[in-house]
């Protein structure tokens, strides 16, 4: 079927009075070279939509450029899935950000005409996405880890009607929670420790035909992609079975920090235990007086908070595990409930008891638990017990307390498998043949033995880690989103948390996993472009096998085929376009988003000559934060400079450097990049996209120097969706700077 292009100019929403519509029609016809151009007074009305629909059905229109409001508005009205569509943003992007004055009329009209040209050029470079054909339809969820998080995820998914395969390393379900005598209360009146709840969940799982449990089992290999994973499950006995699963939840939990590393706090001494050690004693006591390992009844106990946590020396854990204050409160109650005369002292620097834990804290005070603000400097054996040396921070003095037993509140160390960077480095060294290589080989074997998922991905066997060995999950904006599509981390593997939080976390992860399986089955993308049917393809004839795409893809979507060409796993792909931005020979593209669709828009902008005093600045704005912020600036009628031309991009990561050099070569006076925050506090929807994009752009500055251009002609701006008021100001500042620098010498060349 031949392509047939149509453009529609809307004159509603005051577009008709603010702009010269007839001139826009002419622009679309002449400059845009569009065969069918129509004007409508209310394009998003039923009548307007019917007009377009009719053209598609009866005029064989295949490509539609809608010149009206922002692509983020009226998406339900302008929903034509069978055609390629572009949107010229005349409302939020032009008349709402410009004053309605006589002086402004000319530049406002020019702005609108450019957006019409751009919409026409863009749509001509687009194709209708066909959707991923390489789908899998498995709707079974694999849950790795049978602790509180894993069991909860399994039960929740099953309740929602999905089958679950639950793999547990040990011989029984329950994980760490099963080792607790009781748990921190999670319901009214928050005053006493509660049953740990494990037996209950285990019984539910046993009775649930939807949940298949493997005990003493590990995941030996995970291959495939969302909707069609194949997981090899190896049981201790040696049997291996392969399960077809659609999504995975990693609930591999944590281990307590090694108490032997805390010798300065008495770690390793007979009468010093960690919190799990105390749980064991409490279990043995079963509600009666708690006895030490040597059988002596404990009459005095000191709890040392933050043991090896929130450490600034760099030697121990630098973070707070969140639950341990409440856990010590709970454990102090074990003693007081069994015998109110036991001396229980909690030594803390800050007692962190968020939410209803405050009531729990108060209940402990009421029971006579003593809380002292102090820093412990040493624990030594003294007589039959211990002497805890500490500095009392309220009374500002060094003092000590005697105790039969000392409990150290140590932290959580996540079970997340090997660090991928360390592993790939070891792998690299192991390639050699020297002594180092031999050592590295051993390291690789050791590291691989800790793998949780054993992913058969080019990017490594497990999920990437963020800080302190926790799984990278989008902790600021989308806490469940990891960097492996349809694999979700839940519970303390993601960040330190208590049972209540882990339960909630697992429930959320189960819902996300279900969504991911469903989308995968339909060939659609998962978050944040949920429902997107486009996917990247590479024109392999042009590929130089540089591997940039396989390395940079933040989601490990690209493997290598036998000939070492990139092999896209469409259902793992989030459609960020980072691969497209990375490819130095520009052979990667999406049907509806490519080097061309953007390049054509850049070329479509009319560049007035040097003497016009009308500069042009290209803005490449991230569609997730910056573009909405610009739209909202329009809604608030925050004005900005009329010489800006904005093109939304999927992610800063998708920006190919060719766009910048093309723009500057064709006479643009400046280029602004707007993307999300990157680094430790990243907000990039694609996690690494904005970081990689920025890294790439840093190379362009050399090119600018080569072109004899000021480096300020390229400007990188960090934008959050909330910058509605500040963004226009920053744009105007940049416009002023461009004016100051003067026009680009490349105009009209």
């Amino acid at each position, binding site marked *: 079927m031949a392509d047939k292009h149509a453009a529609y100019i809307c004159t509603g929403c005051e577009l008709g009075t603010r702009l010269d519509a007839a001139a826009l029609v002419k622009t679309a016809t002449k400059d845009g070279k569009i065969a069918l151009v129509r004007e409508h007074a209310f394009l998003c009305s039923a009548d307007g939509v019917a007009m377009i629909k009719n053209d598609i059905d009866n005029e064989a229109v295949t490509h539609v450029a809608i010149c009206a409001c922002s692509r983020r508005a009226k998406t339900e009205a302008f929903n034509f899935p069978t055609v390629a569509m572009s949107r010229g943003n005349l409302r939020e992007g032009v008349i709402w950000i410009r004053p309605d004055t006589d002086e402004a009329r000319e530049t406002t009209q020019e702005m609108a005409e450019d957006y019409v040209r751009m919409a026409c050029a863009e749509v001509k470079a687009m194709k209708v996405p066909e959707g991923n054909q390489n789908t899998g339809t498995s709707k079974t969820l694999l849950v790795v880890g049978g602790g509180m998080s894993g069991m909860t995820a399994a039960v929740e998914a099953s309740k929602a009607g999905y089958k679950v395969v639950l793999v547990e390393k040990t011989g029984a379900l329950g994980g760490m929670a099963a080792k607790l005598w009781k748990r921190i209360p999670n319901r009214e009146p928050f005053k006493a420790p509660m049953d740990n709840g494990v037996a209950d969940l285990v019984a539910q799982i046993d009775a649930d035909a939807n949940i298949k449990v493997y005990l003493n089992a590990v995941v030996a290999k995970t291959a495939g992609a969302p909707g069609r994973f194949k997981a090899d499950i190896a049981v201790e006995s040696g049997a291996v079975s392969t399960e077809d699963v659609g999504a995975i939840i990693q609930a591999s939990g944590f281990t307590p920090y090694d108490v032997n590393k805390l010798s300065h706090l008495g770690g390793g001494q007979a009468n010093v235990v960690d919190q799990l050690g105390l749980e064991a004693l409490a279990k043995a006591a079963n509600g009666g007086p708690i006895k030490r390992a040597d059988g002596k009844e404990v009459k005095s106990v000191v709890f040392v908070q933050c043991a090896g946590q929130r450490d600034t020396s760099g030697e121990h854990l630098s973070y707070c595990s969140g639950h341990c204050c409440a856990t010590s409160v709970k454990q102090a109650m074990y003693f007081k409930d069994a015998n109110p005369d036991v001396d229980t002292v909690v030594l803390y620097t800050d007692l962190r008891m968020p939410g209803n834990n405050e009531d729990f804290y108060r209940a402990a005070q*009421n029971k006579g638990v003593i809380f002292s603000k102090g820093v412990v400097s040493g624990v030594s054996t003294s007589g039959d017990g211990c002497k805890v040396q500490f500095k009392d921070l*309220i*009374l500002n003095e060094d003092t000590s307390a005697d105790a039969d037993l000392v409990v150290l509140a140590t932290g959580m160390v996540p079970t997340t498998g090997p660090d991928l960077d360390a592993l790939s480095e070891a792998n690299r060294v192991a390639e050699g043949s020297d002594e180092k290589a031999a050592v590295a080989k051993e390291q690789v074997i050791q590291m691989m033995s800790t793998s949780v998922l054993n992913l058969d991905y080019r990017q490594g066997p497990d999920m990437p880690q963020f800080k302190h060995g926790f799984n990278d999950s989008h902790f600021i904006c989308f806490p469940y989103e990891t960097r492996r599509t349809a694999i979700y981390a839940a519970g303390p593997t993601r960040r330190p948390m208590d049972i209540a939080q882990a339960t909630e976390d697992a429930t959320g992860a189960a819902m996300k996993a279900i969504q991911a399986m469903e989308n995968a089955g339909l060939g659609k993308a998962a978050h944040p472009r949920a429902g997107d049917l486009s996917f990247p393809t590479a024109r392999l004839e042009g590929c130089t096998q540089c591997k940039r795409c396989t390395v940079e893809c933040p989601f490990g979507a690209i493997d290598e085929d036998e000939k070492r060409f990139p092999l896209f796993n469409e259902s793992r792909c989030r459609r960020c376009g980072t691969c497209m931005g990375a490819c130095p020979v520009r052979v990667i593209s999406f049907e509806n988003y490519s080097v061309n669709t953007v390049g054509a828009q850049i070329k479509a902008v009319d560049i007035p000559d040097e003497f016009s005093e009308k500069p042009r600045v290209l803005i490449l704005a991230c569609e997730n934060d910056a573009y909405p912020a610009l739209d909202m600036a329009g809604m608030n009628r925050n004005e900005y400079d009329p010489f800006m031309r904005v093109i939304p991009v999927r992610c800063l990561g998708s920006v190919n450097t060719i766009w910048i050099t093309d723009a500057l070569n064709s006479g643009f006076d400046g280029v602004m990049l707007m993307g999300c925050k990157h680094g430790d506090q990243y907000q990039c929807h694609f996690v690494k996209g904005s970081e990689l994009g920025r890294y790439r752009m840093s190379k362009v500055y050399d090119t600018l120097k080569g072109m004899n251009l000021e480096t300020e002609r390229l400007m990188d701006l960090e934008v959050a969706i909330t910058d509605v008021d500040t963004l226009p100001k920053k744009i105007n500042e940049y416009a002023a700077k461009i004016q100051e620098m003067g026009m680009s010498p490349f105009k009209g060349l």
Partner: protein
Amino acid sequence: MSDMNQQMSAKYKNNFLKEIEEQAEMGEWVKMCMQCGVCSGSCPTNFHPGWEHPPQELFMMIRAGKRDEVLDSQSMWMCVSCYNCYVRCPRKVPITHIMHGIAEYAYRIGRAPKNQPTLHLSQTFWNNATKTGRVNEVQLTQSLYFKDGIMDGIKKAMAMQDVALGLVKAGRLNVMEAIGGGHKCKDIKGIHAMLAKAKELENQRKGRAA
């Protein structure tokens, strides 16, 4: 040290917190303090030299078993009963009453600092008020000035002379009261009997020998 002090110290052995909980007014609240320091920051007397241990610290000292330091302290005697801490404490600890309670207890068992002026004021005020059922302001003022002997009293009275004179001139200090006139209740006998009984009952409840 008085017998009472030894007796109490023996009774509670090393558990000073328990001693305060049972003996000082509202003492059972001490354990509920969460050491936030709001009281210390709110106390007006803390802004002028005088607060050795603000309430938060006193409570911590009690929990740390610092019996001597607490009971001998001047700190709780500095409380002006402004209730600033009381209304601000996030734990609703009735701090003002505890301050008074600790002071009162220290006094009862003979541990109040020697010549504590506020204690002297408290004694004088109460004795003055209960003698006739109502306060006699002139006698109250006199006994306050002359507490440290005649010479000192004259000095103080001289220093305060303008204050007193001002009040007399304004008709607000009735010199008649000094020579036995002034206000009083009719049922003075009843009041005295009532107070004697109350004191006896309180001592009984707190296990203090009369």
